[in-house]
């Protein structure tokens, strides 16, 4: 039985496994996600995913079906309702059906795996969720990626030593696309290209090529279990996190180049020049005093922000202009650039 796995302040980062898993499965094109539970669970998640998509300038075409459990399904068991929902999903002529369960389903003990295990004619993949009983939002993300990886073909030879996968993008985070583009830019400096985004608006056929890459780039250390799984399955090593901040970006180039067998020195040199140019552009802020609206989201963010403050000769004090703390660590040099633009706007506005 899980104890409460959520952080104390769960308003933004918390949530249940169902939402976390849906943030992954709804990003697989040609698929439908069946939520086994009351209609309200689907409604709330649809609303959340849709609103978050709009916030990121992305109109999400969410393909969700609820098994619509009501009192009778709770009392007599909801496996028949789940079967009906899966049949309805299959009629949409999709390539794969993902089945996610809610708290009440786990409470009454429906055997979701057995229903999914029937011969449906198309892959019907159970994603372990069980609402809050299954853990936290992040557990749902990991479970969904693990379940999807489990349906992929086994070990294959890398097609190209210069292609890499992106693993576990935070599909609901602000700037998800900007962060992706920055990682792609840095990888391009090393001559690496991206194979599969596992999973972000990815088609089922693209996913089948997951094992063809020579390296996996994990979104952050919470993705390590998925990285380990992919290593066991495909023998693909992984980089543990997207680059955070200025020196973090240079470290990323070095570690990734070393692991890919590419001399990273030219890429690091180019990126250093870019970073110097970036800081020159913000040199007018030197000596300004700042204060932050929030604390740093984690240690890497703290380091990245401290480094920028030191290099621009900024000061932090309670009388400083209030500047926004990024909700997640700034990814790459360009993440720092966007952060500094926001700071400068706040400084200029004298907030």
């Amino acid at each position, binding site marked *: 039985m899980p104890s409460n796995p959520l952080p104390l302040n769960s308003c933004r980062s918390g949530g249940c496994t169902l939402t976390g898993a849906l943030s992954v499965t709804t990003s697989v094109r040609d698929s439908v996600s069946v939520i086994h539970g009351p209609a309200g669970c689907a409604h709330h998640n649809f609303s959340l995913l849709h609103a978050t998509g709009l916030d990121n300038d992305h109109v999400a075409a969410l393909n969700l079906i609820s098994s619509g459990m009501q009192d009778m399904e*709770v009392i007599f068991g909801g496996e028949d309702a789940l079967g009906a929902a899966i049949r309805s999903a299959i009629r949409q002529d999709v390539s794969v059906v993902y089945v996610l369960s809610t708290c009440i389903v786990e409470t009454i*003990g429906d055997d979701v795996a057995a229903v999914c295990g029937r011969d449906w004619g198309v892959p019907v993949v159970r994603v372990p969720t069980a609402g809050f009983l299954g853990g936290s939002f992040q557990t749902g993300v990991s479970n969904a990626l693990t379940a999807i990886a489990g349906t992929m073909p086994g070990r294959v030879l890398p097609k190209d030593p210069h292609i890499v996968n992106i693993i576990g993008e935070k599909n609901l985070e602000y700037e998800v696309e900007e962060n992706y583009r920055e990682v792609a830019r840095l990888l391009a400096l090393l001559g690496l290209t991206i194979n599969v985004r596992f999973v972000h608006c990815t088609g089922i056929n693209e996913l089948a090529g997951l094992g063809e890459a020579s390296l996996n780039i994990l979104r952050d250390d919470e993705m390590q279990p998925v990285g380990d799984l992919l290593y066991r399955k495909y023998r693909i090593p992984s980089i543990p996190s997207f680059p955070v901040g200025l020196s973090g970006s240079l470290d990323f180039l070095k570690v990734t180049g070393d692991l890919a067998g590419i001399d990273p020195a030219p890429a690091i040199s180019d990126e250093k020049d870019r970073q110097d140019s970036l800081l020159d552009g913000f040199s007018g802020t030197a000596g300004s005093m700042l204060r932050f609206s929030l604390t740093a989201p984690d240690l890497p963010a703290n380091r990245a922000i401290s480094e920028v403050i030191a290099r621009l000769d900024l000061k932090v004090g309670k009388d400083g202009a209030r500047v926004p703390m990024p909700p997640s660590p700034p990814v790459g040099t360009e993440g720092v650039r966007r952060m500094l633009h926001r700071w400068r706007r706040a400084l200029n506005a004298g907030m």
Partner: protein
Amino acid sequence: MMKQIALYGKGGIGKSTTSANLSAALSLQGCDVLQIGCDPKRDSTRMLMHGNFIPTVMDLVRERGDAQLKKEDVVHTGFHGIRCVEAGGPEPGVGCAGRGIIATFQLLEKFGALSGDVIVYDVLGDVVCGGFAMPMREGYAQEIYLVTSGELMSLYAANNICKAIKRLSSRVKSTCRLAGVICNAKDMPREEELVAEFARRVNSTLVQYIPRDRIVQLAELNKQTVIEFAPDSPQAGKYRALAAAVVKNNSLTIPAPLEIDALESLALEFM
């Protein structure tokens, strides 16, 4: 004033037999009786219905939907005009039987079916979840009777139910109290003494000792209660005495459940 009583106890201890005979005796004493079986096994009222399994509330809701149901669909008249209801529930191993009990109560409330002089709730073996505590909640049974033999596991279950009553009775609106202990005997030596002492130690009393008698099995094989099948038998007299005790009983207590060590020591004293 309507009296609402619930019989709780270990599975197989004889709650349904006791409930049916109690209802029959109460009815013959002039009471308008409603018996509600709160167990997916749905056999609480079978002897009152001369061996027939009546359709359960949950089966009817599942087949027809609750909007189509009427009171007369779920309330069936048995021996001596006793109104019988079976809550029913899912097949073993699926769904949530406790939720079925709650849904049944909601429907009976909607129908205004909870009426009469006495309502007897016959509840599944133990308080396994909140659903099976439903009869103890406010607005339903105020008087809880524990049915037990002198066997340790039966006393253990009865003691557990004391814990549930104690917990529920602490709620502000709760009127649920322990009304007494019924000994449905297994013919153990000093069994009546043991159960009486158990009752005393949990802050209650033994309201009736019901000896083991094969007339009970004989009556059931003839699909009747003992009260109907052998009204002149000594066993029928015991059930009538129980009914009389229940009617006049106004000794309602908040139980003091025993620790397991104390319960085992008690059982040892009477070995």
